């Protein structure tokens, strides 16, 4: 798990504030120290907030950090919808299934077998049978 730049920058600013609180002094020298410390903290925060890079040979690669969209789409209501919603949304969004053409029960059985046996989806035999039942009744796109 990566620590985001925002987290690092926030940490630096908090550290700087603590430093200011500790260093704080009424006399002139103290004020100058505070100002210098504050400037250093701002510079450090800016540096920490700037994305880290790797550069050589005239090329710079800049760190990236994003949040990928997710989907809250559930399977259409119907018998055994609870089985497919409960077992089949962890690894892939429902769109994978709901864009499939109309497949035979045997083809759906094959897909569910692949998910369980090859891709190790932890689905009980009862739920797998219920999911196949649901899919065999599915009329995608209608």
């Amino acid at each position, binding site marked *: 798990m990566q620590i985001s730049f925002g987290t690092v920058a926030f940490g630096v600013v908090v550290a700087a504030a603590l430093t200011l609180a500790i260093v704080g002094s009424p006399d002139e020298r103290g004020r100058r120290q505070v100002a210098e410390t504050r400037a250093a903290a701002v510079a450090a925060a800016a540096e920490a907030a700037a994305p880290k890079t790797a550069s050589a040979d005239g*090329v710079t690669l800049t760190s990236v950090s994003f949040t990928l969209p997710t989907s809250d789409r559930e399977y259409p209501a119907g018998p055994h919808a609870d089985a497919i919603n409960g077992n089949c949304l*962890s690894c892939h969004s429902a*769109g994978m299934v709901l864009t499939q053409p109309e497949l035979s029960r045997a083809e759906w059985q094959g897909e569910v077998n692949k998910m369980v046996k090859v891709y190790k989806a*932890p689905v009980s035999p009862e739920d797998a049978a219920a999911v196949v039942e649901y899919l065999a009744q599915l009329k995608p796109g209608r």
Partner: protein
Amino acid sequence: MPDADIATGTTRRRVLQGLGAGALTLGAGRALGADVRLPLPSDPRDRPMTGAFPQKGSMILQRTRPPLLETPFEVFDQGVFTPNDRFFVRWHWAVIPESVDAAAFRLAVRGNVERPLSLSLEDVLNLPSVELAAVNQCSGNSRGLFEPRIAGGQWDNGAMGNAKWVGVRLKDVLDRAGVKAGSVAVRFNGLDEPVVPDAPDFMKSLDLDHARDGEVMIAYRMNGEQLPLLNGFPLRLIVPGWYSTYWVKMLSDIEVLDKPDESFWMKTAYRIPDTPHASVRPGETGFPTVPINRMVPRSWFTGLANGAKVKAGASAPLRGIALGGDRGVKAVDVSTDGGATWAAAKLGADEGTYSFRRWTFDGAAAPAAGGKLEALVRCTNADDVVQPILQPWNPGGFMRNGVETLDLTAA
């Protein structure tokens, strides 16, 4: 403890949903699928368009998680190179790093080598750089068009893109590590992981000779920029002329093997019939298979879509793109008599063996009295491999490359 693991995946999903209440959650509270209608032979044909993915513009949403994003076909009419923000996206497993630290990232080179390496991005950037234009095409591009239909990603023709890639030769990296005698293959792994840890991690391998051919490269730039996260930032394997399945994204691990790769994604998945055109009859079993490999020639019409109206009595402005596959485009020909006779199209600039090439044709006369005009386009590559008129079929829905037809109306 697979139950606990899948629960973790679910929890993570719910956490993301919580964070994304609204903008990041796709499809909340409305019917999906009215934005674009793909020309598939049967339902469901409708797909939403999405602009919600980082570093991506408007894309056809095939699947949110893990993302399958298709390039709208009109993009291929706009230039021979595909802009990074419109370049298709395809991931196998849902655990995709959302942050990559360019300073901390390391590429491991290990296995049957004299000197295992842990390369920083600066180390990679300091190696001699090479540039190459190459089409990256999903093995299953156009799967949705097969008849009989085939389970899998239901792509139209947009699971492909062309880019100028800059990077370092894989050969140079392997030479730095010192490949030991007796090595036969090189396996590639990226930062993505399955949600269920027992599931087969996505890895691909190439024969050692192929890996050392001097063309296979590790790219860090795509069309003049660093790679978008979803196209594999910071490093991606480029295997010119071969299907995208080998172009491992977020490449972080290179392992030299002293025996053939027996792992799932080579031995079981992405296999094609070992027959001419990888063709079998629907339902046929018992044929030998091999790992999918070289791309085959293709060509498409761009600009005009099926059903478009053209001016009666004038030359129809036919144009498009072609791809030679693992060899350059030698010729693009157009037929307006159902394939009985063919005439050469004019080829655009040659951007390299593995690039798209533009073509134009001004010899298709739309009937003066109006009516239908049917045009076919066909690419021949430098090895004289020609697109087949009749589309072969295989159970994976791979390697589609039949001749494309354009139906126009003259008025």
